[in-house]
């Protein structure tokens, strides 16, 4: 976030120019609309739910947001690059299942399973990117296929190997304790319990932001999202960029999957379906355009935070949870409208 300088510099005519350009920069940020929304949602729940403002509640909300945000960051990058990934939700479950079952069946140190799972999950991502760039089919179709295949593989393999629909406990195996520290530990800061996923989330958002704003690859992402043919014409490696983006989503799915495994020890094979839309919604609330070429990683984090606040805020406010999806839908529309309005204003001032 850039702040407008409070004190005008004693220089002459340049100073006003500088200030408007700073302001314009701020207005042009994709996440501005969602930030306004986040503040509004926060204030709203602070008023209607007295337990929402407790420090412990904030820890819970942050945790809920981080489990979405870890995935929303690379999904936002992918959407800026003009593509979708509908397999992101079940890929998280796949990654956890692979890790758990490999360790158990091979009686290997848990870290071996974690590493194997990383390779296989990245292979899923590479498969998505490779199929997309080779077949020229829309990513919606390609990843829908992957989504269905992974859903079936999750269940089929788990049933085949474990004999039930969930994996066997690996909590008593070597390496579990250290892996749990990395992926699912928590510590208490002044009475607030903070989960390690919040750190992973911050790290991924920081890396994604750095890539977008400070590297050549970031420029390529905007370019392929804005128009793949034009990007190719000016020498952007479109294929490599898109495969790279899918690898990013796969990496985050691996992190989320390991978190699932090491916080709960046992993984249910049927889970994760539907979460891919949650990640997309978080990215869109955060200012990503469905059509690509515009958005930000910080926005995805704000979107995830709004998601976490709403989901848990309804519980703290003691409302009937039957209405949660309704609020979510309304919020999505409002946020997108707000984003569009802010963007228009920003472009008008240029």
């Amino acid at each position: 976030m850039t702040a407008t300088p409070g004190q005008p510099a004693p220089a002459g005519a340049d100073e006003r120019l500088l200030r408007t350009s700073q302001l314009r920069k701020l207005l042009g940020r994709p996440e501005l609309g969602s930030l306004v929304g986040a503040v509004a949602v926060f204030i709203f729940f602070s008023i209607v739910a007295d337990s929402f403002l407790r420090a412990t509640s904030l820890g819970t909300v942050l945790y809920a947001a981080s489990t979405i945000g870890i995935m929303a960051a690379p999904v936002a990058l992918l959407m800026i690059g003009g593509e979708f990934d509908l397999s992101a939700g079940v890929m998280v479950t796949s990654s956890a299942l692979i890790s758990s079952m490999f360790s158990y069946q091979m009686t290997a140190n848990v870290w071996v399973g974690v590493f194997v799972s990383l390779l296989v999950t990245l292979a899923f991502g590479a498969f998505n990117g490779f199929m997309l760039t080779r077949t020229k089919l829309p990513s919606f179709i390609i990843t829908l296929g992957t989504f269905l295949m992974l859903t079936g593989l999750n269940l089929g393999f788990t049933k085949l190997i474990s004999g039930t629909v969930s994996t066997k406990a690996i909590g008593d195996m070597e390496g579990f304790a250290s892996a749990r520290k990395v992926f699912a530990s928590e510590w208490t800061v002044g009475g607030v319990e903070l989960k390690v996923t919040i750190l992973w989330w911050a790290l991924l958002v920081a890396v994604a932001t750095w890539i977008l704003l400070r590297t050549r690859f970031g420029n390529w992402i905007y370019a392929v999202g804005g128009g793949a043919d034009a990007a190719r014409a000016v020498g952007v490696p479109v294929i490599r960029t898109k495969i790279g983006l899918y690898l990013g989503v796969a990496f985050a799915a691996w992190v989320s999957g390991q978190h699932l495994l090491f916080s709960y020890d046992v993984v249910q094979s049927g889970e994760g379906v539907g979460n891919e839309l949650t990640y997309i919604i978080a990215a869109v609330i955060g200012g990503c355009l469905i059509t690509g070429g515009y958005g930000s990683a910080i926005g995805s984090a704000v979107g995830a935070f709004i998601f976490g606040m709403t989901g848990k805020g309804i519980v703290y406010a003691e409302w009937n949870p039957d209405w949660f999806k309704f609020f979510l839908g309304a919020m999505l529309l409002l946020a997108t409208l707000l984003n569009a309005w802010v963007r228009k204003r920003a472009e008008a001032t240029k």
Partner: protein
Amino acid sequence: MGAVLAAVLGASLMGCSSTGGKRAEDRAAQAAAESRSAVNTPRWTFAMVTHSGDGDTFWDIVQKGAKMAAGKDNINFLYSHNDEAQQQAQLIQAAIDKKVDGLIVTLAKPDAMKDVVAKAVKAGIPVITVNSGSAESKQFGALTHIGQDESIAGEAVGDELNKRGRKKALCILHEQGNVGHEQRCAGAKKAFDGEMQSLYVEGTNMPDVQASIEAKLQADKDIDAVVTLGAPFADAAVKAKRTAGSKAEIDTFDLNAKVATALQDKTLGFAVDQQPYLQGYEAVDLLWLYRYNRNVLGGGRPVLTGPQVITAQDAAQLAEYTKRGTR
């Protein structure tokens, strides 16, 4: 007075149904006294967090029972649910954050709930587990467990199928990942003398459930019994049986109004009920008893609400209760 007036008005209007509909429901609601607090204990807050998906009949009945007890016991009752383990754990955490006076949880995915339930116990919140998790309840530090032992319920089904001379049965699992469902089918397999196969269907997609059962019945004409694990699925199985032209008898776990009428007209063979209303009611009431008098029921063993095998003649007595949605 009001009811009489409404009836007079209604009869004088042409084209109105004199049976059923919204008006009959309203009359029944008026007749049923508002549940008013019968005790003068402080207004405690109890939260119930289940693994149910959206819009589930069974959990609606559990809630009705819980709310009835909450009304009597002067309890502020909160309900939340999610079918993803991670989300359910977060909802339990949210209830702990709220510093509720009592917690009711389901342990369909026990390993995922372990840590968060331990946190609740550590925070001094009395926990009662319902419906699923009888094996883990005590170990997690819950006061007691209220529900049916799924293996025993499964065995009851197996025995009943033997009694009816069935040879080849099909067990329909509609919620992949639910350990309790696996136990039901395993229990039925164990007690059943004939052959039993499992079939997984997508419970959130009813037409798909029906089509899957249909395909299975068409493929294997020898199947003479189909066991569904939830009341809404019995209806889909009946439709599938008709389309497939199969001779199989349809039996089910759990009850609802449709199952009760289907039992009476012999469309269904039998139902195994676990009395969901009782699970909700008892959970709230036992928490109240614990807070008020430190009473704990069950002597360290699960308090069983089932299985109760219900056949055609029993169903007749239950019809009015299933209609109002409490059985």
